[in-house]
């Protein structure tokens, strides 16, 4: 409760950020062998919405995340956060990666306070108080002195969420964050994450390859095409919030799922045929 008040009074606009990708293209390779990963991709992540991106495997989702995070730059097009062009990594966008990227030589608490203490925009006491509050929220208060290796997979993901949230980013980017967790932890993390989002309503871009996860979380579902990747179609998910798992068995959810599966299947088949063609050409 406290959070929402402070968030709203201090930084009224920080969960109203818009992320825009305009005609992005990215090609890898040298002059003899070029591979176009992303081609003319445009999409908008609306403020205070949870936008989920799904796509056939190997379609360049991670490449897209790297571009938005600023680790990589597009060959053409531009990425705008609140109409400001993105060129480098920055703490206005927090990325939670596929594999855990907690720093192994820092304890959980040290990991969480790392970002704010580097920038020094708040005093160390304020930062630590905030970190303790967040760790409590993600259920890791007891584990703050532990090193990441001593935490379970689910705990590591939650520690990473706390590390991202303490920086008050304009937008959160989640790159298949629950991949590799067992089914039970994964479900718990999804539930935890959706509560968190519903509470702070921060602009969020969530990348996944699981269609059920996507429908459960999303306000808006963006389906990517096969390589070269662009937006294939957009489905607005109008399930009520707060979400719970029962909604996944409702007829609406079923309909969304069927629609999304059909498109994804079509895209996946294309990649199959392309592989056939290229191997035939190679022979």
């Amino acid at each position, binding site marked *: 409760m406290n959070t929402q008040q402070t968030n709203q009074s201090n930084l009224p606009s920080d969960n109203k950020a818009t992320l825009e990708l305009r005609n992005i293209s990215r090609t890898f390779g040298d002059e003899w062998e070029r591979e176009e990963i992303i081609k003319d991709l445009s999409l908008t992540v609306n403020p205070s919405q949870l936008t989920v991106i799904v796509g056939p495997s190997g379609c360049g989702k991670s490449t897209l995340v790297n571009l938005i995070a600023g680790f990589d730059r597009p060959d053409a097009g531009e990425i705008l956060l609140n109409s400001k062009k993105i060129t480098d990594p920055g703490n206005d966008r927090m990325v939670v990666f596929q594999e855990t*990227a907690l720093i192994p030589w820092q304890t959980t608490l040290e990991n969480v306070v790392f970002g704010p203490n580097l920038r020094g925009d708040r005093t160390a006491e304020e930062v630590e108080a905030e970190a303790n509050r967040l760790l409590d929220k993600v259920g890791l208060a007891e584990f703050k002195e532990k090193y990441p290796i*001593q935490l379970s997979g689910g705990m590591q993901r939650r520690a990473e969420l706390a590390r991202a949230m303490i*920086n008050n980013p304009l937008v959160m980017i989640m790159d298949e964050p629950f991949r590799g967790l067992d089914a039970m932890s994964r479900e718990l993390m999804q539930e935890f994450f959706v509560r968190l989002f519903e509470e702070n309503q921060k602009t969020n871009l969530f990348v996944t390859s699981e269609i059920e996860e996507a429908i459960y979380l999303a306000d808006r579902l963006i389906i990517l095409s096969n390589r070269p990747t662009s937006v294939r179609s957009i489905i607005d998910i109008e399930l009520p919030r707060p979400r719970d798992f029962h909604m996944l068995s409702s007829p609406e959810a079923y309909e969304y799922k069927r629609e999304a599966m059909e498109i994804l299947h079509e895209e996946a088949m294309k990649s199959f045929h392309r592989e056939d063609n290229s191997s035939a050409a190679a022979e």
Partner: protein
Amino acid sequence: MTDTTSTTQTKKPPTGLTRTIYDWGTSLKSPTPYLMTFGIFLWIGAYYLFVEGWELPRFNKLPGPVEVITEFLNPDPDWGMSLFTAEFYDHVFVSCRRILIAFAIATGVGVPLGLFMGWSKTFRDYSFPILETLRPIPILAWVPLAILMFSGLETPVIYLATLASLFVTTLNTLLGVDSIDEEYFRAANCLGSKPHHVFMHIVVPGALPFIFTGLQISIGVAWFSLVAAEMVSGEFGLGYLIVDAYMNITYVIMVIAMLTLGFVGWLSSALVRIAGNRLMQWRVRALALEGR
């Protein structure tokens, strides 16, 4: 994993001396100390049988363990050197001081050098070919140069020990920086790190495991080249003592010096290992979880 962490939470771990005693107690329950003792006795037994028991050819010229140990523990030694003579400690002290100086210089120069080489592509491009060309030159090949460059007896010896250990430290530190996962650099950048933050919080701690592996090797290499150097030039030190004892046909002293070298060398790398574990608590935990 959740279970283990929560049980340790409830019981406070002992610290300091209590902890040390506890650890000793636990290790006495494992087969390790008994196997080690058995191994040592097995080795000494074989040594005794070969040299003093059966007097096998090739071995019969050597001083046996009984002879060496009696002499070593003799307050009034027949050959003039034992645990009770000041001269013995003079040699040990001189060698240890040289190692300390050489190791300190090599670490003080090698670690920063390796860190910068790993961190800055430009700096690496400048310096890597030189390092890789100089590194394979055997340390004995540097002896004439060392004598030409430095006057006196002390400096060339220290120079040679430093040089050998410097290459090892630098290369290991460099590899340590290379070993750091790209993800941690990304995480740090994402969290708003400036380059000097990345250096202090990612490059240095991330390279530490390799640095300490390197330091353990480098202190061994330092002893190795120190003894070689002392054999060539010098009037004190354990290496000198070995050659001197050989020349004077006092083989017992030669073996005493060799065993002392082994012991001091082992002690010095144990100290490096302990220092490393103190600095890398996260790694100690990681290895403990893997049951090591």
